[in-house]
Protein backbone atom coordinates (compact mmCIF):
# COMPACT_ATOMS: atom_id res chain seq x y z
CA UNK A 1 0.00 0.00 0.00
CA UNK A 2 2.71 2.49 1.00
CA UNK A 3 4.68 1.82 -2.16
CA UNK A 4 1.53 2.19 -4.25
CA UNK A 5 0.77 5.58 -2.71
CA UNK A 6 4.30 6.78 -3.39
CA UNK A 7 4.16 5.57 -6.99
CA UNK A 8 0.84 7.31 -7.53
CA UNK A 9 2.14 10.53 -5.98
CA UNK A 10 5.14 10.41 -8.31
CA UNK A 11 2.85 9.81 -11.29
CA UNK A 12 0.86 12.89 -10.30
CA UNK A 13 3.88 15.16 -10.75
CA UNK A 14 4.11 15.09 -14.58
CA UNK A 15 0.33 15.41 -14.87
CA UNK A 16 0.36 18.38 -12.51
CA UNK A 17 3.20 20.06 -14.40
CA UNK A 18 1.62 19.35 -17.79
CA UNK A 19 -1.81 20.67 -16.85
CA UNK A 20 -0.59 23.83 -15.13
CA UNK A 21 1.93 24.53 -17.90
CA UNK A 22 -0.78 24.16 -20.54
CA UNK A 23 -3.10 26.56 -18.71
CA UNK A 24 -0.20 28.90 -17.97
CA UNK A 25 0.78 29.12 -21.64
CA UNK A 26 -2.79 29.58 -22.81
CA UNK A 27 -3.57 32.26 -20.24
CA UNK A 28 -0.39 34.21 -20.89
CA UNK A 29 -0.93 33.95 -24.62
CA UNK A 30 -4.37 35.51 -24.17
CA UNK A 31 -2.95 38.92 -24.81
CA UNK A 32 -0.90 41.59 -23.14
CA UNK A 33 -2.14 41.76 -19.56
CA UNK A 34 -0.44 45.11 -19.00
CA UNK A 35 -2.39 46.86 -21.72
CA UNK A 36 -5.53 45.15 -20.44
CA UNK A 37 -4.68 46.73 -17.08
CA UNK A 38 -4.86 50.19 -18.58
CA UNK A 39 -8.13 49.60 -20.37
CA UNK A 40 -8.62 51.90 -23.35
CA UNK A 41 -5.81 54.32 -22.46
CA UNK A 42 -2.42 53.71 -24.02
CA UNK A 43 -0.01 53.08 -21.13
CA UNK A 44 3.05 55.23 -20.67
CA UNK A 45 5.88 53.07 -22.10
CA UNK A 46 8.20 53.59 -19.14
CA UNK A 47 5.43 52.69 -16.64
CA UNK A 48 4.41 49.68 -18.71
CA UNK A 49 8.02 48.49 -18.84
CA UNK A 50 8.35 48.97 -15.09
CA UNK A 51 5.19 46.94 -14.43
CA UNK A 52 6.34 44.24 -16.83
CA UNK A 53 9.65 44.05 -15.03
CA UNK A 54 8.03 43.92 -11.59
CA UNK A 55 5.68 41.12 -12.68
CA UNK A 56 8.50 39.26 -14.48
CA UNK A 57 6.54 39.61 -17.71
CA UNK A 58 9.74 40.51 -19.59
CA UNK A 59 11.27 37.11 -18.79
CA UNK A 60 10.93 34.13 -21.15
CA UNK A 61 7.80 32.06 -20.61
CA UNK A 62 9.54 29.02 -19.07
CA UNK A 63 11.23 31.25 -16.51
CA UNK A 64 7.91 32.91 -15.67
CA UNK A 65 6.40 29.48 -15.14
CA UNK A 66 9.24 28.39 -12.85
CA UNK A 67 9.01 31.64 -10.86
CA UNK A 68 5.27 31.14 -10.58
CA UNK A 69 5.58 27.56 -9.37
CA UNK A 70 8.27 28.58 -6.88
CA UNK A 71 5.85 31.20 -5.58
CA UNK A 72 3.02 28.70 -5.21
CA UNK A 73 5.03 26.37 -3.03
CA UNK A 74 5.75 29.23 -0.66
CA UNK A 75 2.07 30.12 -0.53
CA UNK A 76 2.36 33.11 -2.84
CA UNK A 77 -0.15 33.00 -5.67
CA UNK A 78 0.70 36.48 -6.89
CA UNK A 79 -1.41 39.59 -6.97
CA UNK A 80 -4.51 40.15 -9.06
CA UNK A 81 -4.25 43.24 -11.22
CA UNK A 82 -6.46 45.26 -8.90
CA UNK A 83 -3.80 44.88 -6.22
CA UNK A 84 -5.64 42.23 -4.20
CA UNK A 85 -3.55 39.15 -3.40
CA UNK A 86 -4.95 36.11 -5.22
CA UNK A 87 -4.94 34.16 -1.96
CA UNK A 88 -7.40 36.72 -0.56
CA UNK A 89 -9.78 36.12 -3.49
CA UNK A 90 -9.41 32.42 -2.88
CA UNK A 91 -10.22 32.79 0.79
CA UNK A 92 -13.62 34.30 -0.06
CA UNK A 93 -14.39 32.22 -3.17
CA UNK A 94 -13.36 28.68 -2.21
CA UNK A 95 -15.48 28.30 0.97
CA UNK A 96 -18.56 29.28 -1.05
CA UNK A 97 -17.87 26.78 -3.83
CA UNK A 98 -16.92 24.10 -1.29
CA UNK A 99 -20.29 24.62 0.45
CA UNK A 100 -22.06 24.42 -2.91
CA UNK A 101 -20.16 21.23 -3.77
CA UNK A 102 -21.00 19.67 -0.39
CA UNK A 103 -24.71 20.37 -0.95
CA UNK A 104 -24.50 18.91 -4.46
CA UNK A 105 -22.61 15.76 -3.38
CA UNK A 106 -25.06 15.18 -0.51
CA UNK A 107 -28.03 15.49 -2.87
CA UNK A 108 -26.36 13.12 -5.33
CA UNK A 109 -25.46 10.56 -2.70
CA UNK A 110 -28.74 10.52 -0.79
CA UNK A 111 -31.27 10.77 -3.62
CA UNK A 112 -29.17 8.95 -6.20
CA UNK A 113 -28.60 5.91 -4.01
CA UNK A 114 -32.19 5.90 -2.73
CA UNK A 115 -33.73 6.05 -6.21
CA UNK A 116 -31.17 3.61 -7.56
CA UNK A 117 -31.83 1.00 -4.85
CA UNK A 118 -35.60 1.30 -5.18
CA UNK A 119 -35.56 0.91 -8.96
CA UNK A 120 -32.82 -1.73 -8.91
CA UNK A 121 -34.83 -3.93 -6.54
CA UNK A 122 -38.01 -3.61 -8.59
CA UNK A 123 -36.67 -3.98 -12.10
CA UNK A 124 -39.18 -3.46 -14.85
CA UNK A 125 -41.77 -2.21 -12.34
CA UNK A 126 -43.42 1.17 -12.81
CA UNK A 127 -41.08 2.87 -10.32
CA UNK A 128 -38.11 1.56 -12.30
CA UNK A 129 -39.51 2.78 -15.61
CA UNK A 130 -40.35 6.19 -14.16
CA UNK A 131 -36.87 6.57 -12.68
CA UNK A 132 -35.23 5.53 -15.95
CA UNK A 133 -37.24 8.02 -18.00
CA UNK A 134 -36.61 10.74 -15.43
CA UNK A 135 -32.84 10.18 -15.45
CA UNK A 136 -32.78 10.27 -19.26
CA UNK A 137 -34.63 13.59 -19.28
CA UNK A 138 -32.36 15.06 -16.61
CA UNK A 139 -29.22 14.02 -18.50
CA UNK A 140 -30.56 15.53 -21.73
CA UNK A 141 -31.50 18.95 -20.39
CA UNK A 142 -28.34 21.10 -20.16
CA UNK A 143 -27.45 22.54 -16.75
CA UNK A 144 -28.15 26.14 -17.73
CA UNK A 145 -31.68 25.26 -18.81
CA UNK A 146 -32.37 23.34 -15.57
CA UNK A 147 -30.93 26.31 -13.68
CA UNK A 148 -33.19 28.93 -15.25
CA UNK A 149 -36.25 26.70 -15.01
CA UNK A 150 -35.81 25.94 -11.31
CA UNK A 151 -34.94 29.56 -10.62
CA UNK A 152 -38.14 30.72 -12.35
CA UNK A 153 -40.42 28.07 -10.84
CA UNK A 154 -39.08 27.72 -7.29
CA UNK A 155 -37.63 31.19 -6.84
CA UNK A 156 -39.90 33.54 -8.74
CA UNK A 157 -43.29 31.94 -9.42
CA UNK A 158 -43.80 29.88 -6.26
CA UNK A 159 -41.39 31.74 -3.97
CA UNK A 160 -40.31 28.54 -2.18
CA UNK A 161 -36.60 29.29 -2.29
CA UNK A 162 -34.48 32.42 -2.79
CA UNK A 163 -33.96 33.13 -6.51
CA UNK A 164 -30.43 34.43 -6.05
CA UNK A 165 -27.84 33.82 -3.39
CA UNK A 166 -26.55 36.53 -1.04
CA UNK A 167 -22.85 37.34 -0.66
CA UNK A 168 -22.34 35.08 2.38
CA UNK A 169 -24.01 32.12 0.60
CA UNK A 170 -25.29 30.17 3.64
CA UNK A 171 -26.22 26.52 3.22
CA UNK A 172 -29.99 27.02 3.06
CA UNK A 173 -29.71 29.40 0.10
CA UNK A 174 -27.53 26.90 -1.75
CA UNK A 175 -30.06 24.05 -1.84
CA UNK A 176 -31.60 24.95 -5.22
CA UNK A 177 -28.23 25.79 -6.87
CA UNK A 178 -26.83 22.59 -5.40
CA UNK A 179 -29.69 20.63 -6.91
CA UNK A 180 -29.04 22.23 -10.31
CA UNK A 181 -25.32 21.50 -10.07
CA UNK A 182 -26.00 17.93 -8.96
CA UNK A 183 -28.76 17.16 -11.48
CA UNK A 184 -26.76 15.40 -14.21
CA UNK A 185 -24.51 13.49 -11.79
CA UNK A 186 -27.58 12.58 -9.75
CA UNK A 187 -28.96 10.82 -12.80
CA UNK A 188 -25.66 8.95 -13.31
CA UNK A 189 -25.50 7.90 -9.64
CA UNK A 190 -29.08 6.63 -9.86
CA UNK A 191 -28.38 4.56 -12.96
CA UNK A 192 -25.09 3.24 -11.59
CA UNK A 193 -26.69 2.20 -8.29
CA UNK A 194 -29.61 0.64 -10.13
CA UNK A 195 -27.36 -1.48 -12.34
CA UNK A 196 -25.09 -2.72 -9.56
CA UNK A 197 -27.99 -3.39 -7.16
CA UNK A 198 -29.84 -5.36 -9.84
CA UNK A 199 -26.65 -7.28 -10.62
CA UNK A 200 -25.79 -8.07 -7.01
CA UNK A 201 -29.38 -9.01 -6.14
CA UNK A 202 -28.80 -12.21 -8.10
CA UNK A 203 -25.54 -12.99 -6.29
CA UNK A 204 -25.16 -16.13 -4.19
CA UNK A 205 -24.48 -14.30 -0.95
CA UNK A 206 -27.81 -12.47 -1.23
CA UNK A 207 -29.62 -15.75 -1.80
CA UNK A 208 -27.83 -17.19 1.23
CA UNK A 209 -28.85 -14.21 3.35
CA UNK A 210 -32.48 -14.60 2.29
CA UNK A 211 -32.36 -18.37 2.78
CA UNK A 212 -31.10 -18.16 6.32
CA UNK A 213 -34.11 -16.03 7.15
CA UNK A 214 -32.70 -12.55 7.54
CA UNK A 215 -35.30 -9.77 7.44
CA UNK A 216 -35.43 -7.91 4.13
CA UNK A 217 -34.07 -4.62 5.45
CA UNK A 218 -31.01 -6.47 6.75
CA UNK A 219 -30.46 -8.28 3.46
CA UNK A 220 -30.66 -5.03 1.53
CA UNK A 221 -29.00 -2.74 4.04
CA UNK A 222 -26.07 -4.86 5.17
CA UNK A 223 -25.42 -7.34 2.40
CA UNK A 224 -26.64 -5.89 -0.86
CA UNK A 225 -26.07 -2.18 -0.33
CA UNK A 226 -22.54 -2.39 1.04
CA UNK A 227 -21.35 -4.36 -1.95
CA UNK A 228 -23.25 -2.25 -4.46
CA UNK A 229 -21.93 1.07 -3.23
CA UNK A 230 -18.31 0.54 -4.26
CA UNK A 231 -18.59 1.90 -7.82
CA UNK A 232 -20.93 4.65 -6.59
CA UNK A 233 -18.36 5.88 -4.07
CA UNK A 234 -15.77 5.91 -6.86
CA UNK A 235 -18.02 8.01 -9.04
CA UNK A 236 -18.84 10.46 -6.24
CA UNK A 237 -15.15 10.91 -5.45
CA UNK A 238 -14.12 11.74 -8.99
CA UNK A 239 -17.15 13.98 -9.29
CA UNK A 240 -15.93 16.32 -6.53
CA UNK A 241 -13.26 17.81 -8.77
CA UNK A 242 -15.58 17.98 -11.76
CA UNK A 243 -18.31 19.73 -9.73
CA UNK A 244 -15.96 22.38 -8.34
CA UNK A 245 -14.68 23.20 -11.81
CA UNK A 246 -18.09 22.93 -13.43
CA UNK A 247 -19.90 25.15 -10.95
CA UNK A 248 -19.29 28.05 -13.34
CA UNK A 249 -22.68 27.94 -15.05
CA UNK A 250 -24.64 27.39 -11.85
CA UNK A 251 -22.77 30.19 -10.08
CA UNK A 252 -23.51 32.53 -12.97
CA UNK A 253 -27.24 31.82 -12.96
CA UNK A 254 -27.69 32.18 -9.21
CA UNK A 255 -25.20 35.01 -8.84
CA UNK A 256 -22.93 33.11 -6.47
CA UNK A 257 -19.49 34.69 -6.05
CA UNK A 258 -17.54 31.46 -5.86
CA UNK A 259 -14.63 29.96 -7.78
CA UNK A 260 -16.49 29.80 -11.09
CA UNK A 261 -17.49 33.45 -10.86
CA UNK A 262 -13.94 34.61 -10.07
CA UNK A 263 -12.55 32.50 -12.91
CA UNK A 264 -15.08 33.80 -15.40
CA UNK A 265 -14.29 37.37 -14.41
CA UNK A 266 -10.58 36.61 -14.50
CA UNK A 267 -10.74 35.25 -18.02
CA UNK A 268 -12.93 38.07 -19.33
CA UNK A 269 -10.61 40.71 -17.84
CA UNK A 270 -7.42 38.84 -18.75
CA UNK A 271 -6.51 38.67 -15.08
CA UNK A 272 -3.89 35.98 -15.55
CA UNK A 273 -2.68 35.47 -11.94
CA UNK A 274 -6.25 34.82 -10.77
CA UNK A 275 -6.97 32.34 -13.55
CA UNK A 276 -3.75 30.35 -13.24
CA UNK A 277 -3.93 30.34 -9.44
CA UNK A 278 -7.51 29.10 -9.26
CA UNK A 279 -7.00 26.49 -11.97
CA UNK A 280 -3.86 25.21 -10.23
CA UNK A 281 -5.80 24.67 -7.01
CA UNK A 282 -8.63 22.96 -8.92
CA UNK A 283 -6.17 20.63 -10.64
CA UNK A 284 -4.60 19.71 -7.27
CA UNK A 285 -8.06 19.00 -5.81
CA UNK A 286 -8.93 16.87 -8.84
CA UNK A 287 -5.71 14.83 -8.61
CA UNK A 288 -5.98 14.28 -4.85
CA UNK A 289 -9.65 13.30 -5.11
CA UNK A 290 -8.75 10.69 -7.75
CA UNK A 291 -5.94 9.30 -5.59
CA UNK A 292 -8.19 9.10 -2.52
CA UNK A 293 -10.84 7.29 -4.54
CA UNK A 294 -8.33 4.67 -5.67
CA UNK A 295 -7.15 4.16 -2.10
CA UNK A 296 -10.71 4.02 -0.80
CA UNK A 297 -11.41 1.33 -3.37
CA UNK A 298 -8.92 -0.98 -1.69
CA UNK A 299 -10.47 -0.30 1.72
CA UNK A 300 -14.01 -0.95 0.52
CA UNK A 301 -13.23 -4.01 -1.58
CA UNK A 302 -10.84 -6.37 0.22
CA UNK A 303 -10.30 -8.29 -3.02
CA UNK A 304 -8.30 -5.35 -4.38
CA UNK A 305 -4.78 -5.15 -3.02
CA UNK A 306 -2.23 -2.68 -4.25
CA UNK A 307 1.31 -3.95 -4.25
Amino acid sequence: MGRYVIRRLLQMIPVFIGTTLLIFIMVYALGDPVSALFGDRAPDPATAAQIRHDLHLDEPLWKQYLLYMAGIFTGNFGTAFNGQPVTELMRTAFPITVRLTIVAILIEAVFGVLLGVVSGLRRRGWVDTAVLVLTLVVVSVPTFVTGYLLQLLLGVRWGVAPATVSAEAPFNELIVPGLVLAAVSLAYVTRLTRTTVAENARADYVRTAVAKGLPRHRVVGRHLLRNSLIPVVTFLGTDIGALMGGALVTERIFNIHGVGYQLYQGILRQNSPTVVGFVTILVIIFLIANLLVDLLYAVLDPRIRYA
Partner: protein
Amino acid sequence: MPELTKTPVETEVPETGALAAAEPVREKARSLWQDAWRDLRRNPVFIISGLLITFLVVIAIWPGLIASGDPGDCDLAHSLQGSAAGHPFGFDQQGCDVYTRTVFGARASITVGVLATLGSAVLGGVLGGLAGFFGGWWDTLLSRLADVFFGIPILLGGLVFLSLVGGSLWSVITFIVLLGWPQVARIARGAVVTVKQQDYVQAARALGAGSTRMMLRHVLPNAVAPVIVVSTIALGTYISLEATLSFLGVGLRPPTVSWGIDISSASSSFRNAPHMLLYPAGALSITVLAFILLGDAVRDALDPKLR
Protein backbone atom coordinates in the same frame (compact mmCIF):
# COMPACT_ATOMS: atom_id res chain seq x y z
CA MET B 1 -32.27 4.73 -41.85
CA PRO B 2 -28.85 4.48 -43.43
CA GLU B 3 -26.88 1.39 -42.61
CA LEU B 4 -24.92 1.77 -39.42
CA THR B 5 -21.48 0.75 -40.61
CA LYS B 6 -20.14 -1.24 -43.45
CA THR B 7 -17.26 -3.28 -42.22
CA PRO B 8 -15.66 -6.15 -44.06
CA VAL B 9 -16.91 -9.29 -42.39
CA GLU B 10 -14.59 -11.84 -44.01
CA THR B 11 -12.03 -11.42 -41.24
CA GLU B 12 -14.55 -12.60 -38.70
CA VAL B 13 -15.71 -15.69 -40.48
CA PRO B 14 -13.30 -18.21 -38.96
CA GLU B 15 -14.14 -17.12 -35.43
CA THR B 16 -17.91 -16.93 -35.74
CA GLY B 17 -17.85 -20.11 -37.77
CA ALA B 18 -16.16 -21.91 -34.91
CA LEU B 19 -18.63 -20.48 -32.41
CA ALA B 20 -21.63 -21.39 -34.50
CA ALA B 21 -20.40 -24.95 -34.92
CA ALA B 22 -20.77 -25.49 -31.18
CA GLU B 23 -24.39 -24.33 -31.30
CA PRO B 24 -27.34 -26.03 -33.01
CA VAL B 25 -26.70 -26.09 -36.75
CA ARG B 26 -29.93 -24.26 -37.65
CA GLU B 27 -28.60 -20.94 -36.39
CA LYS B 28 -26.85 -19.19 -39.27
CA ALA B 29 -23.39 -17.83 -38.50
CA ARG B 30 -23.46 -14.06 -38.16
CA SER B 31 -20.75 -11.56 -37.48
CA LEU B 32 -20.99 -9.12 -34.60
CA TRP B 33 -22.10 -6.45 -37.05
CA GLN B 34 -24.88 -8.48 -38.61
CA ASP B 35 -26.06 -9.47 -35.15
CA ALA B 36 -25.95 -5.88 -33.91
CA TRP B 37 -27.84 -4.61 -36.95
CA ARG B 38 -30.51 -7.28 -36.47
CA ASP B 39 -30.86 -6.27 -32.81
CA LEU B 40 -31.06 -2.59 -33.67
CA ARG B 41 -33.80 -3.01 -36.26
CA ARG B 42 -36.00 -4.59 -33.61
CA ASN B 43 -35.26 -2.06 -30.89
CA PRO B 44 -38.02 0.58 -30.58
CA VAL B 45 -35.63 2.99 -28.85
CA PHE B 46 -33.34 2.83 -31.88
CA ILE B 47 -36.22 3.35 -34.31
CA ILE B 48 -37.57 6.36 -32.44
CA SER B 49 -34.19 8.02 -31.92
CA GLY B 50 -33.19 7.16 -35.48
CA LEU B 51 -36.28 8.81 -36.94
CA LEU B 52 -35.77 11.86 -34.72
CA ILE B 53 -32.13 12.19 -35.73
CA THR B 54 -32.96 11.74 -39.41
CA PHE B 55 -35.51 14.53 -39.05
CA LEU B 56 -32.99 16.77 -37.24
CA VAL B 57 -30.31 16.14 -39.85
CA VAL B 58 -32.72 16.93 -42.68
CA ILE B 59 -33.75 20.13 -40.91
CA ALA B 60 -30.11 21.03 -40.35
CA ILE B 61 -29.39 20.67 -44.07
CA TRP B 62 -32.61 22.22 -45.45
CA PRO B 63 -34.18 24.37 -42.68
CA GLY B 64 -36.37 25.97 -45.35
CA LEU B 65 -38.44 22.79 -45.51
CA ILE B 66 -40.43 23.64 -42.37
CA ALA B 67 -39.56 27.29 -41.79
CA SER B 68 -40.09 29.72 -44.64
CA GLY B 69 -38.80 32.84 -42.90
CA ASP B 70 -35.31 34.23 -42.49
CA PRO B 71 -33.84 34.00 -38.94
CA GLY B 72 -32.38 37.48 -39.34
CA ASP B 73 -35.72 38.98 -40.37
CA CYS B 74 -36.66 40.84 -37.19
CA ASP B 75 -39.08 43.62 -36.37
CA LEU B 76 -38.58 45.42 -33.06
CA ALA B 77 -42.30 46.26 -33.01
CA HIS B 78 -42.94 42.60 -32.10
CA SER B 79 -40.34 42.50 -29.33
CA LEU B 80 -41.12 39.85 -26.68
CA GLN B 81 -44.64 39.21 -28.01
CA GLY B 82 -46.17 35.80 -27.44
CA SER B 83 -47.36 33.45 -30.15
CA ALA B 84 -49.40 34.88 -33.02
CA ALA B 85 -50.81 33.61 -36.30
CA GLY B 86 -47.93 32.33 -38.44
CA HIS B 87 -45.52 32.72 -35.53
CA PRO B 88 -46.38 29.80 -33.23
CA PHE B 89 -43.42 30.29 -30.85
CA GLY B 90 -43.75 34.07 -30.53
CA PHE B 91 -40.97 36.66 -30.85
CA ASP B 92 -37.71 37.33 -29.02
CA GLN B 93 -36.28 40.58 -27.68
CA GLN B 94 -35.22 41.79 -31.12
CA GLY B 95 -38.60 40.85 -32.56
CA CYS B 96 -37.21 37.86 -34.44
CA ASP B 97 -39.49 34.88 -35.00
CA VAL B 98 -38.55 32.28 -32.35
CA TYR B 99 -39.87 29.38 -34.45
CA THR B 100 -37.63 30.23 -37.42
CA ARG B 101 -34.60 30.73 -35.18
CA THR B 102 -35.25 27.45 -33.37
CA VAL B 103 -35.43 25.57 -36.68
CA PHE B 104 -32.31 27.23 -38.07
CA GLY B 105 -30.43 26.60 -34.81
CA ALA B 106 -30.36 22.86 -35.52
CA ARG B 107 -27.64 23.33 -38.13
CA ALA B 108 -24.96 24.64 -35.75
CA SER B 109 -25.67 22.02 -33.10
CA ILE B 110 -25.70 19.06 -35.47
CA THR B 111 -22.61 20.27 -37.36
CA VAL B 112 -20.59 20.73 -34.17
CA GLY B 113 -21.82 17.45 -32.70
CA VAL B 114 -21.14 15.31 -35.77
CA LEU B 115 -17.79 16.85 -36.77
CA ALA B 116 -16.44 16.96 -33.20
CA THR B 117 -17.44 13.32 -32.72
CA LEU B 118 -15.79 12.25 -35.97
CA GLY B 119 -12.67 14.23 -35.10
CA SER B 120 -12.26 12.87 -31.59
CA ALA B 121 -13.15 9.32 -32.70
CA VAL B 122 -10.51 9.33 -35.45
CA LEU B 123 -7.82 11.11 -33.42
CA GLY B 124 -8.49 9.18 -30.20
CA GLY B 125 -9.01 5.89 -32.03
CA VAL B 126 -5.76 6.14 -34.00
CA LEU B 127 -3.60 7.41 -31.11
CA GLY B 128 -5.10 5.06 -28.53
CA GLY B 129 -5.08 2.12 -30.93
CA LEU B 130 -1.42 2.63 -31.83
CA ALA B 131 -0.52 2.98 -28.14
CA GLY B 132 -2.31 -0.27 -27.35
CA PHE B 133 -0.82 -2.08 -30.36
CA PHE B 134 2.81 -1.09 -29.96
CA GLY B 135 2.96 -0.42 -26.18
CA GLY B 136 6.30 0.76 -24.85
CA TRP B 137 7.29 4.38 -24.31
CA TRP B 138 4.71 5.68 -26.80
CA ASP B 139 1.99 4.06 -24.70
CA THR B 140 3.33 5.61 -21.49
CA LEU B 141 3.69 9.04 -23.07
CA LEU B 142 0.19 8.94 -24.50
CA SER B 143 -1.40 7.81 -21.23
CA ARG B 144 0.26 10.65 -19.33
CA LEU B 145 -0.76 13.12 -22.05
CA ALA B 146 -4.36 11.91 -21.78
CA ASP B 147 -4.13 12.40 -17.99
CA VAL B 148 -3.06 16.01 -18.54
CA PHE B 149 -6.11 16.70 -20.70
CA PHE B 150 -8.35 14.93 -18.20
CA GLY B 151 -7.06 17.18 -15.42
CA ILE B 152 -8.28 20.35 -17.11
CA PRO B 153 -11.82 21.29 -16.10
CA ILE B 154 -13.73 21.26 -19.43
CA LEU B 155 -15.59 24.55 -19.14
CA LEU B 156 -12.54 26.43 -17.89
CA GLY B 157 -10.41 25.02 -20.66
CA GLY B 158 -13.12 26.08 -23.10
CA LEU B 159 -13.27 29.61 -21.72
CA VAL B 160 -9.51 30.08 -21.90
CA PHE B 161 -9.00 28.37 -25.28
CA LEU B 162 -11.93 30.01 -27.03
CA SER B 163 -11.26 33.50 -25.71
CA LEU B 164 -7.72 32.94 -26.98
CA VAL B 165 -8.54 31.84 -30.53
CA GLY B 166 -11.97 33.49 -30.82
CA GLY B 167 -15.28 31.72 -31.03
CA SER B 168 -16.37 30.24 -34.33
CA LEU B 169 -17.76 26.96 -35.60
CA TRP B 170 -14.28 25.59 -36.31
CA SER B 171 -12.64 26.73 -33.09
CA VAL B 172 -15.46 25.16 -31.04
CA ILE B 173 -15.06 21.88 -32.96
CA THR B 174 -11.27 21.99 -32.54
CA PHE B 175 -11.63 22.56 -28.81
CA ILE B 176 -14.09 19.70 -28.34
CA VAL B 177 -11.83 17.35 -30.33
CA LEU B 178 -8.84 18.45 -28.21
CA LEU B 179 -10.60 17.62 -24.95
CA GLY B 180 -12.62 14.69 -26.29
CA TRP B 181 -9.93 12.46 -27.79
CA PRO B 182 -8.36 11.19 -24.54
CA GLN B 183 -11.63 9.50 -23.57
CA VAL B 184 -11.82 7.70 -26.92
CA ALA B 185 -8.09 6.93 -26.81
CA ARG B 186 -8.45 5.17 -23.46
CA ILE B 187 -11.28 3.00 -24.74
CA ALA B 188 -9.49 2.24 -28.02
CA ARG B 189 -6.27 1.38 -26.19
CA GLY B 190 -8.07 -1.01 -23.86
CA ALA B 191 -9.91 -2.67 -26.74
CA VAL B 192 -6.73 -3.15 -28.80
CA VAL B 193 -4.80 -4.55 -25.82
CA THR B 194 -7.58 -7.10 -25.25
CA VAL B 195 -7.88 -8.08 -28.91
CA LYS B 196 -4.09 -8.37 -29.31
CA GLN B 197 -3.99 -11.20 -26.78
CA GLN B 198 -6.64 -13.24 -28.60
CA ASP B 199 -5.58 -16.54 -30.11
CA TYR B 200 -6.47 -15.61 -33.67
CA VAL B 201 -4.17 -12.60 -33.56
CA GLN B 202 -1.38 -14.74 -32.16
CA ALA B 203 -2.11 -17.25 -34.92
CA ALA B 204 -1.85 -14.52 -37.55
CA ARG B 205 1.47 -13.46 -36.07
CA ALA B 206 2.69 -17.07 -36.10
CA LEU B 207 1.74 -17.29 -39.77
CA GLY B 208 4.04 -14.37 -40.40
CA ALA B 209 1.60 -11.48 -40.82
CA GLY B 210 3.27 -8.07 -40.75
CA SER B 211 2.29 -5.26 -38.37
CA THR B 212 0.19 -3.43 -40.97
CA ARG B 213 -1.72 -6.53 -41.99
CA MET B 214 -2.31 -7.55 -38.36
CA MET B 215 -3.55 -4.09 -37.47
CA LEU B 216 -5.87 -3.58 -40.42
CA ARG B 217 -7.20 -7.12 -40.97
CA HIS B 218 -7.28 -8.62 -37.48
CA VAL B 219 -7.16 -6.03 -34.72
CA LEU B 220 -9.05 -3.08 -36.23
CA PRO B 221 -12.31 -4.83 -37.18
CA ASN B 222 -12.52 -6.41 -33.73
CA ALA B 223 -11.56 -3.37 -31.66
CA VAL B 224 -13.62 -0.71 -33.38
CA ALA B 225 -16.97 -1.51 -31.70
CA PRO B 226 -16.20 0.10 -28.29
CA VAL B 227 -14.94 3.22 -30.08
CA ILE B 228 -18.22 3.51 -31.99
CA VAL B 229 -20.20 3.06 -28.77
CA VAL B 230 -18.31 5.67 -26.74
CA SER B 231 -18.40 8.13 -29.66
CA THR B 232 -22.15 7.82 -30.19
CA ILE B 233 -22.80 8.44 -26.52
CA ALA B 234 -20.40 11.40 -26.54
CA LEU B 235 -22.20 13.05 -29.46
CA GLY B 236 -25.10 14.18 -27.29
CA THR B 237 -22.80 15.60 -24.64
CA TYR B 238 -20.77 17.46 -27.28
CA ILE B 239 -23.94 19.18 -28.53
CA SER B 240 -24.75 20.12 -24.95
CA LEU B 241 -21.19 21.40 -24.46
CA GLU B 242 -21.38 23.58 -27.59
CA ALA B 243 -24.61 25.14 -26.32
CA THR B 244 -23.06 25.74 -22.89
CA LEU B 245 -19.98 27.43 -24.38
CA SER B 246 -22.18 29.58 -26.65
CA PHE B 247 -24.32 30.37 -23.61
CA LEU B 248 -21.23 31.58 -21.74
CA GLY B 249 -20.45 33.85 -24.69
CA VAL B 250 -17.24 32.19 -25.90
CA GLY B 251 -18.64 29.61 -28.30
CA LEU B 252 -20.44 30.44 -31.51
CA ARG B 253 -21.10 34.13 -32.14
CA PRO B 254 -23.94 35.87 -33.93
CA PRO B 255 -24.90 36.00 -36.80
CA THR B 256 -24.57 32.20 -36.48
CA VAL B 257 -27.94 31.00 -35.22
CA SER B 258 -27.35 28.74 -32.22
CA TRP B 259 -29.64 27.50 -29.48
CA GLY B 260 -26.97 28.34 -26.90
CA ILE B 261 -26.78 31.98 -28.01
CA ASP B 262 -30.58 32.30 -28.14
CA ILE B 263 -30.97 30.80 -24.67
CA SER B 264 -28.31 33.17 -23.35
CA SER B 265 -30.01 36.24 -24.80
CA ALA B 266 -33.39 34.96 -23.61
CA SER B 267 -32.14 34.61 -20.03
CA SER B 268 -32.32 38.36 -19.29
CA SER B 269 -36.04 38.64 -20.05
CA PHE B 270 -36.83 35.07 -19.06
CA ARG B 271 -39.08 36.01 -16.16
CA ASN B 272 -41.46 38.03 -18.35
CA ALA B 273 -41.19 36.10 -21.62
CA PRO B 274 -40.33 32.46 -20.82
CA HIS B 275 -41.39 31.29 -24.31
CA MET B 276 -38.23 32.85 -25.70
CA LEU B 277 -36.11 30.45 -23.66
CA LEU B 278 -38.31 27.38 -23.54
CA TYR B 279 -38.49 26.67 -27.28
CA PRO B 280 -34.77 26.67 -28.12
CA ALA B 281 -34.09 24.92 -24.78
CA GLY B 282 -36.68 22.28 -25.63
CA ALA B 283 -35.23 21.74 -29.09
CA LEU B 284 -31.74 21.45 -27.62
CA SER B 285 -32.86 18.96 -24.96
CA ILE B 286 -34.73 16.80 -27.48
CA THR B 287 -31.69 16.71 -29.77
CA VAL B 288 -29.36 15.70 -26.93
CA LEU B 289 -31.91 13.11 -25.76
CA ALA B 290 -32.18 11.61 -29.26
CA PHE B 291 -28.41 11.11 -29.50
CA ILE B 292 -28.17 9.69 -25.96
CA LEU B 293 -30.93 7.20 -26.78
CA LEU B 294 -29.15 6.25 -30.02
CA GLY B 295 -25.93 5.74 -28.04
CA ASP B 296 -27.75 3.51 -25.52
CA ALA B 297 -29.28 1.42 -28.32
CA VAL B 298 -25.96 1.05 -30.16
CA ARG B 299 -24.22 0.06 -26.93
CA ASP B 300 -26.84 -2.57 -26.16
CA ALA B 301 -26.50 -3.99 -29.66
CA LEU B 302 -22.70 -4.00 -29.80
CA ASP B 303 -21.95 -5.23 -26.29
CA PRO B 304 -22.22 -9.02 -26.51
CA LYS B 305 -22.09 -9.31 -22.71
CA LEU B 306 -25.50 -7.68 -22.42
CA ARG B 307 -27.16 -10.12 -24.81
